């Protein structure tokens, strides 16, 4: 065998080995990925039977705001608990006999003349919530909002 052919022959064998090994590895990773995807779907289904997801809007009154979509909460949690969890504990307020009066969310205070008002939406229209935030229990897929305003007739 000439030297040129020798090199090509060796190279071809190396490439063949590499192809076999990488194909097997790719197959292994594909199967691992498929199994992980299945496990994720099963876990998510299990989680859905134990938790709710809700959408929470925090609107600051100056036109800016932030949506917390797909906030996953345990069944039975209130709007206050859900907001506190989703903002990372950035909800502050004062507790009264009628309920908690929220004075600050995400570092933005609402101690007058603007206050943090709560709303619920059916997808097309916002409705003022007339319950204290810790007494309002969220349902599956519910859309709720916090709006910093001095006009109770305004909606987010």
């Amino acid at each position, binding site marked *: 065998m000439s030297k040129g052919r*020798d090199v090509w022959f*060796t190279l071809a*064998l190396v490439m063949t*080995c590499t192809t*076999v*090994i990488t194909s*097997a590895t790719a197959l*292994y990773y594909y*199967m*691992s990925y498929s199994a992980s995807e299945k496990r994720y779907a099963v876990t998510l289904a299990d989680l859905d039977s134990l938790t709710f997801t809700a959408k929470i809007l925090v609107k600051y009154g100056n036109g800016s705001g932030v949506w917390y979509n797909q906030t996953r909460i345990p069944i039975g949690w209130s709007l206050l608990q859900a907001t506190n969890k989703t903002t990372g504990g950035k909800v502050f307020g004062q507790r009264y006999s009628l309920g908690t009066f929220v004075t600050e969310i995400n570092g933005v205070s609402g101690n007058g003349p603007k206050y943090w008002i709560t709303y619920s939406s059916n997808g097309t229209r916002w409705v003022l919530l007339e319950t204290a935030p810790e007494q309002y229990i969220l349902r599956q897929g519910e859309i709720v909002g916090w709006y910093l305003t001095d006009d109770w007739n305004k909606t987010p």
Partner: protein
Amino acid sequence: MEEAIAHNLQHARRTKSVALIICLSALCIGTNYAMMPLSNIKLMDTIVFTTGMVFGFVPGAAVAALSWLLYGTLNPLGFSAPVLGIVILSEMIYSYGGYIIGRTQHGGEPDVNGGMRRSVVLGTVGLFCTLVYDLLTNAVSGLLSYNSVWLGWMTMNFPIPLGIIHEVSNLFFFATLAPILLKVLRKLQQKAKQSEH
């Protein structure tokens, strides 16, 4: 008188063959037990391959059968007669592979620059022999365990990539250890021939 000498010579050759098969089988079994914690990484395939390459298919197959009969029976992972049967037959692939390669230009001692090429050839043959071995044994164990060849092949590399580990380790051993083992076995063969004269 001449007949008696020829008979004795043949008898001596057979005894040497049996001794060699037993020694190499012992090496296979010993390394198999020693490498037990390393799943699917074994020197046995390389030993069987080189035996087939130097001494021919039958001695290599005998080493494969004898090693598996002992290692497969006294195995901490368990014993299964049908699986043992198929691994013995599949292990003979290495001996056959060695026998075939031994009869090509890659079977002899390489020239000064041919060592690397021969390592690549041996590694490639080792990889493909291992692939065939894995496909065969997993197909049969799939049939026995799940009644499906496909499921057997699926479990070859999943959830643990045992097939890939087996193939890559054999590629490495065939490319690096097989040439050394070949040299040793050839020296043994030459010494045996010299002692006959």
